């Protein structure tokens, strides 16, 4: 049972699918906010990576999505909810190197099958659910205490 703590920061961002020109913008905004809060560098780095990869996933695979960030003194919670094709086999999608990315996406250096693995690796808690034809939900927690 988690002790409910009041957030010190909350924000929600919309990400348009397919818009690679803007990809990374939300992650940059999140990083700026975390810096302003004066969080530890190691925590900011983890959160920036998690936010970036989540954003790239929405841009690459969904029509649109929302990234919610909520920060308490103890943790950063990043949630992404997208409207998209969904993931038929999550355990397969979690395998490093597995990707359904198009040639166009791969040419840009995305779609190497590392995104979800990296998100999981850099999060202290990671949750993923998906519904075919509807979309995918990700929830990541990054601890601020014991952040190293």
């Amino acid at each position, binding site marked *: 049972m988690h002790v409910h703590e009041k957030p010190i920061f909350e924000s929600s961002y919309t990400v348009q699918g397919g818009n*690679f*020109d803007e*990809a*990374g*913008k939300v*992650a*940059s905004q999140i*990083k700026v906010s975390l810096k302003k809060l004066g969080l530890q*560098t190691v925590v900011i*780095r983890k959160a*920036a*990576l998690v936010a*970036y*990869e989540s954003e*790239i996933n929405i841009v690459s695979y969904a029509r649109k999505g929302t990234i919610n960030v909520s920060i308490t003194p103890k943790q950063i919670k990043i949630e992404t909810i997208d409207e998209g094709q969904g993931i038929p086999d999550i355990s397969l999608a979690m395998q490093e190197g597995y990707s359904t990315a198009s040639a166009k996406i791969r040419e*840009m*250096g*995305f779609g*190497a099958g*590392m*995104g979800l693995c*990296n998100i999981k*690796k*850099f999060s202290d808690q990671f949750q993923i659910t998906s519904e075919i034809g509807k979309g995918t939900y990700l929830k990541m927690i990054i601890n601020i205490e014991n952040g190293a």
Partner: protein
Amino acid sequence: MNIETIVKCLDLNVFSGFDRLKTEVLDGYTGDLLSDVMANSKEGDIWMTRQVHQNIIAVASLKDHAGIILVHGAEPAKDTLEKALRENIPVMGTNLSGFEAAGRIYNILKEKKDATATPP
């Protein structure tokens, strides 16, 4: 060692971030897979890549890289250059291959580190 030293040693073409060439280079990273660079490169790295689209600026900015070197004669795409100038991220170019550019920078960094290391 700062970016300027690398620019001089490798005779790099500077596309952007002209007033940030004094930025200290701590280490380097090479890679064209953005997820790999996001996960494994570090703050203060000089990043060598063959990717020229504008997402490289977002990656370099998020990772606090010292700068980006486009290898093998690559030049930034128009929107990449605009973004780099706007965000003041140093982007350089070289005709050297990624292998050779990385090798030379590795040696320069190593020499500097050895020179400043305190003897046991």
